């Protein structure tokens, strides 16, 4: 096991974590402010990815695809919020789970209807498709560096937005004390729609960027949705800071589990055990981590509700 | 003096930088009605939560019936006989008055890990519930759904639920909150009748009621009990007067009250 490999995996973990953060940030805010469990969040990710892939294919430009796709997904998210999701805010969690689960099913089938069952291909722009030499002997894909850069930029922007603007203050107030925020004159309806739109945009961004790495196909939202929920539960619902920390932790643990754990297992317990137990253990690792966190901190690392 | 039924020693609760309960001491004698008063924000609700077990304490001790209950859960304390009622009504809205109270009786009578025989068939339990309902003035409202009761009736049910558990100590959090004069008088009568039968710790803002009922009064200010004594002692206490400047206490004319 050499240092280069570890460094590479750490960067992969960082990249994964930051992408997860894009998904988790919107999810935790929706949950924290509107007190709504939104299983359709993964659908926004999927729709975003599909839009970006289609526009990229149509225009030949990844950047055009990314730009218009993100906007398109945001619009879709806002329309969804206004038409259906708004009615679920006051309902109990079971109703929200089932209602958004229904939307998830409908989105999956609609996408299948429009684009078919075959995965779409999405390629990174030519400029970013090669490796970058970070220091002698160590090269890392330019595209992944780009993802890390975008992720960090978004995190920074969100921080600025939430900590230093009026809207951000309203968001923070809404996340910790909804009634108080309402009493203070926040136009709650508009705030909700805004938060939802931003969340949808972030999802689409993540979907578009991950598209070249993972597949753009129906059902891509589900697996990452669960991870996003794990992230916000670990981080504490309503906390963007928690979402970042949780996402980074989950990203690193997942990556380490997938790549490093089997290596450890091979050395410790032999190749056969490693190939059998390795994948299972690494998938389970995240959940064990979440269960452990919840055991000691039943409301996550940074519970934001009073 | 006999050993107190409830004894609180240097109880502390902090919320970040705020010390809500600041080394509070309290002794409650068996069979008496003990009132806990204090200006708004004094920490009465927090203290009640700590005594009932809804909130853990940072330090200090709570001794009840010679058990150290400081670390016990709320349901363990209730089973020991320390039962509370809530300031914000917390009843079973979709159940009838009788069912509400019958549940409370069920809690302390035998195990509820019975899976086959009908709970409804326990006539005795329902009759006990009926008796409690009558006692709190809901004898004619037995079959009414709790959520359909008037506010005052719901407060009566609130106390009834606690009473049905046949507690050794009743912890009542503003039982008369939001009640009109007639209802208040009825509640005062009810609480008065409990003297000797059950020990009562009463948190109240209604000073008339407090002075009518309480054998002993403790005054809580900024999480500390600054005075404990009978009605006259409390009224004469200078630090109490200072604490209550401008609050409920001022309007009460000393000469109006008979010792």
């Amino acid at each position: 096991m050499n240092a280069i490999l570890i460094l590479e995996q750490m960067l992969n973990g960082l990249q994964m974590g930051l992408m997860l953060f894009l998904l988790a940030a919107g999810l935790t805010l929706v949950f924290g402010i509107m007190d709504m469990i939104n299983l359709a969040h993964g659908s926004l990710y999927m729709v975003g990815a599909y839009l970006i892939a289609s526009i990229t294919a149509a225009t030949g430009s990844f950047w055009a695809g990314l730009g218009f796709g993100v906007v398109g997904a945001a619009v879709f998210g806002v329309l969804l919020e206004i038409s259906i999701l708004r009615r679920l805010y006051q309902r109990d969690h079971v109703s929200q789970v089932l209602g958004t689960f229904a939307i998830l099913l409908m989105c999956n089938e609609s996408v299948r209807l429009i684009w078919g069952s075959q995965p779409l291909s999405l390629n990174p722009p030519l400029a970013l498709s090669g490796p970058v030499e970070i220091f002698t002997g160590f090269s890392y894909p330019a595209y992944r560096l780009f993802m890390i850069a975008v992720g960090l930029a978004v995190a920074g922007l969100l921080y600025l937005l939430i900590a230093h603007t009026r809207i951000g203050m309203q968001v923070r107030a809404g996340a910790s004390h909804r009634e108080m925020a309402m009493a203070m004159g926040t136009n709650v309806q508009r705030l909700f729609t805004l938060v939802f739109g931003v969340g949808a945009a972030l999802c689409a961004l993540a979907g578009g960027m991950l598209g070249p790495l993972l597949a753009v196909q129906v059902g891509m939202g589900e697996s990452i949705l669960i991870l996003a929920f794990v992230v916000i539960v670990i981080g504490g619902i309503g906390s963007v800071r928690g979402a970042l920390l949780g996402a980074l932790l989950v990203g690193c643990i997942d990556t380490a589990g997938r790549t490093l754990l089997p290596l450890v297992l091979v050395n410790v317990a032999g190749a056969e055990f490693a190939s059998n137990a390795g994948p299972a253990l690494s998938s389970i690792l995240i959940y064990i981590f979440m269960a452990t966190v919840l055991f000691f901190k039943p409301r996550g690392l940074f519970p934001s509700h009073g | 003096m006999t050993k107190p039924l409830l004894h609180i020693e240097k109880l502390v609760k902090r919320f970040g930088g705020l010390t809500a309960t600041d080394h509070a001491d309290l002794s409650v004698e068996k069979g008496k009605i003990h009132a806990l008063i204090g200006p708004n924000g004094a920490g009465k609700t927090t203290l009640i939560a700590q005594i009932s077990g809804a909130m853990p304490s940072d330090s200090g001790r709570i001794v009840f019936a010679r058990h150290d209950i400081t670390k016990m859960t709320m349901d363990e304390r209730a089973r020991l006989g320390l039962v509370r009622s809530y300031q914000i009504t917390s009843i079973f809205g979709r159940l009838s008055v009788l069912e509400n109270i019958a549940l409370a009786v069920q809690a302390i009578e035998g195990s509820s890990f019975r899976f086959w025989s009908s709970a409804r068939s326990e006539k005795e339990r329902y009759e006990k519930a009926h008796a409690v309902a009558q006692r709190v003035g809901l004898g004619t409202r037995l079959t009414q759904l709790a959520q359909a009761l008037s506010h005052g009736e719901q407060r009566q049910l609130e106390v009834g639920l606690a009473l049905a558990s046949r507690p050794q100590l009743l912890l009542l959090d503003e039982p008369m909150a939001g009640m009109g004069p007639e209802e208040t008088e009825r509640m005062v009568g009810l609480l008065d009748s409990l003297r000797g039968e059950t020990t009562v710790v009463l948190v109240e803002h209604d000073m008339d009621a407090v002075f009518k009922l309480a054998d002993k009064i403790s005054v809580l200010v900024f999480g500390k009990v600054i005075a404990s004594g009978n009605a006259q002692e409390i009224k004469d206490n200078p630090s109490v007067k200072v604490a209550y400047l401008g609050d409920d206490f001022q309007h009460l004319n000393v000469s109006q009250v008979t010792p």
Partner: protein
Amino acid sequence: MADLKPVPSVLEHTLQLRWSLPFLALLLALPLAAYSVGDTFYVGMATRVLVFALAASSLNLILGFGGMVSFGHAAFLGIGAYSVAILMQNGIASAWIAWPLAILLTALVSLLIGWVSLRTQGVYFIMITLAFAQMLYYLVISLKAYGGDDGLSLAARSSVGGGIDLSNDVHLYYLSLGALVMAMVFMVRLLNARFGHALQAIRENEVRMTALGFAVFRYKLAAFTLAGAVAGLAGVLFANLNGFVSPAMMQWSQSGMLMMMVILGGVGHLYGGVIGAIAFLLLEEFLSHYTMHWQLGLGAVLLAVVLFAPNGITSLLKRKASHD
């Protein structure tokens, strides 16, 4: 003395024999009807509905009556099913040995999962049950010896003896029906007993129950374990019905389907699971004849139910009955 018999209440449930008995008669007659028409395909399909009804009813116990939103219930189906399949692979085909073992194992696992999960509330509970289910799902996929991703076939259906031959679809049908009927009878007794009253009251106002002196955790855990065990039984029947088990039956979307059945049928109504399973599977059957994209229609129906009939079909039926 006032009449102490409280009015019909949220806590009390009946078997509603007025319509359930005729319905049962119909179910009993179904295989005979199928035979006379010469088409026994529907017997297998009906068995599937019965087993799902059993599974959904077990979820209804904790979700509808206990207020515990468990998103990992399908995992218990899987454990029951896999236990039978694995035992069968190792030569144990007798139902008298395999089935109790399967149910016991499922009960044990649900006890453990419940013990950890029930410490949390609200969405955290939902997430942690989901997490545990995912863990089991991935665990099962990784067991190459038992088929891994591809699943495991059963060489035959469990042997019962005494003239009962489960390889005969009709026998399996009647056995499943018997299991469902027994489960319903047990459930109505349980709900009307002290335990059921306590459980439902916990759903209504958990904090007050604790304040009254009920050890709420124990009741929830007991209900959770019981529900898991019954789901294990349903899993056992599935394994026999399909002759095949696979990790797919433990996916979280399957848990979602079970929840859909419960809400469709009516959360907290005795027959909510049964009605929901029937409605769901009929809907699935009907829609899939029209289009490949039947899940779109299913989603739309579910959404409509959530938005406009949150108490499910049962409450719609009740409302209609009271207007007659």
